[in-house]
């Protein structure tokens, strides 16, 4: 594990980011929070994308994670960040495990559509239920860490970022090890030829189910962190199909080349959004849509391909392109 260059790089990046986060202005801390929370979700979607599965409904698990954190901190005395996030992860995983039995039989646009339908069910419930905050959502109090509450809001954010970075590192390393395992290597094999994988004696449906549950676990964790980082939840930016589309966009933008790619892609996404809203408030979607088209047509490896080309070495794990 320690020989793996990706793991080495991730560890160095973690230490660097932890140090940096104490010196950067607060708005960058916020950007790092949002970017890392989203990156955790995107890692899960990347695992699916490597099998050529695109879910247009992972906002279901993202939103479920966020709303679990929000509901618990609103209606119960639980304020501990780890308990809140653990609950978010557990609920998202449980739902993903159950729904996984259904979606694992589907491919292509049917996979995308079925996920879309499930996520819109949650959206429909949230928007029409007053007790769940309806279309406005609601705000969340700052969490505590092992019983320790920060007086200063900014210090609380910084503490959350440290936790988030460590969790993000653990997730990236874990997924990297998974991808290196036999089960993980089936990812691209299934994409290339399902029937051959079956002939080799592996169950394609079971492998896809595992990937799916992994992606829902990560979406739940990411959603929980996002809720804590934003201090609020609402259905339109977290559960509606456009939120799922945003997650898919960041996945494509990052590229499937490495588990580190989602962090770069998410950070670029957050920075782009901040400046787009400031300078060209009516061009945000145009930038996102245009970028998506450019990547599909000209840069199948996404941001990661760009990074590796600049650095001048090939990404670890043999970056699968988009193919035909």
């Amino acid at each position, binding site marked *: 594990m320690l020989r793996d260059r990706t793991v080495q790089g991730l560890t160095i990046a973690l230490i660097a980011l932890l140090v940096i986060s104490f010196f950067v202005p607060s708005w960058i801390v916020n950007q790092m929070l949002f970017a890392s929370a989203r990156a955790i979700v995107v890692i899960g979607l990347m695992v699916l994308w490597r099998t*050529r599965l*695109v879910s*247009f409904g992972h906002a279901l698990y993202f939103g479920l994670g966020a709303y679990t954190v929000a509901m618990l901190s609103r209606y119960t005395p639980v304020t501990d960040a780890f308990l809140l996030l653990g609950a978010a992860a557990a609920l998202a995983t449980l739902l993903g495990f159950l729904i996984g039995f*259904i979606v694992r039989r*589907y491919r*292509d*646009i*049917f996979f*995308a*559509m*079925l996920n*879309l*339908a*499930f996520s*819109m*069910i949650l*959206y*429909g*419930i949230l*928007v*029409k*239920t007053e007790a769940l905050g309806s279309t406005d959502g609601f705000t969340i109090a700052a969490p505590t860490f092992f019983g320790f509450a920060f007086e200063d809001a900014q210090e609380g954010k910084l503490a959350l970022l440290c936790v988030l970075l460590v969790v993000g590192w653990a997730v990236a390393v874990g997924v990297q090890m998974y991808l290196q395992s036999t089960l993980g290597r089936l990812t691209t094999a299934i994409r290339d030829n399902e029937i051959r994988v079956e002939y080799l004696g592996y169950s394609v449906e079971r492998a896809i189910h595992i990937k799916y549950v992994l992606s829902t676990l990560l979406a739940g964790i990411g959603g929980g962190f996002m809720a804590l980082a934003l201090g609020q939840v609402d259905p339109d930016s977290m559960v*509606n*199909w*456009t939120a799922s*589309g945003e997650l*898919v*966009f960041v996945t*494509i933008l990052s590229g499937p080349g490495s588990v580190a790619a989602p962090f770069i892609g998410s950070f670029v996404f957050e920075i782009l959004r901040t400046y787009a809203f400031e300078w060209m408030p*009516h*061009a*945000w*979607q*145009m930038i*996102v*849509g*245009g*970028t*998506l*088209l450019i990547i*599909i*047509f000209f840069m199948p490896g996404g941001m990661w391909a760009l990074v590796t080309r600049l650095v001048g070495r090939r990404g670890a794990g043999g970056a699968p392109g*988009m*193919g*035909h």
Partner: protein
Amino acid sequence: MDTAITILLDGLVFSSYLFIVSVGLTIIFGVMKILNVTHGSFYAWGAYTAAFLIGVAANAGWPDWAGFGIIFFSAIVVGLVLGLILERGILQFMYHRDEVLIVLATFGTFLVLEDVILLVFGVNPYFAFQPMALLGSVQLGGIARDTYGLTLIGLAVVVAAACWLTLKRTRWGKLLSAVIYDREVSVAMGLNVTRVYIVTFTLGAMFGALGGAYIAPTVSVAPGFGIDVIVLSFAVVVIGGMGSVPGAMIGALAVGLVRALAVHKFPQFELFVIYAVMATVLVFRPEGLFAPVKVRKI
């Protein structure tokens, strides 16, 4: 009894609207196997163009009934322009690629067009009430209903009949049916698939734009107008069977009636029921309720 009539009428009006909006989506999917997210843009562009032109016409002193001409004119122009630009400019380079990637490309195009709308028409909402005000209202089932909404039912019947006649009774329709049934054999028989694709996509775009243009007088046309319609029309075509015109009709009726029932009896389930039906159909009949069983090709 009155409630039952109200629910039925509400449901029928909404079903008609859904059918007009989704028939273009299902035709495009049937022929080209493209799940077209840009359909929401056609809808929004149709609505904006119609609302804008109706406003211009009203200021220029044109009679109110001219609005109906403007609605159909807008649908045709928007469908022609956007349909041709997208098919020739983007989609024709995507046909050999993954279905999922094509969905993503149409999603990207949709996002771009959303902002182009803002650049062209601005961020303020448009109100084009003239055609609706012209028709007034009628008493039905104990409550006053606007006549304009009821004309949607007539329009849906006309659209459905036109589709049926075209597909079953004309040479073009038979060519389309051939491509829907088996693309490769059609190509082998010497059919010009490129031309079929262009015509299909433009026609589908026109229907999408017509849905938006016709609904424009009843609502305020504001930014984000096409977003909800995309998933709604997805639900309709999935329920009925993607690519099938009668399927779109059945899907629209199912969604429209179920939603009307929910709105009147259990308002908190209005959106829930639509997508619950969609998920259920996908789980038990992924090809949709009325699509023919696909023969597996090796």
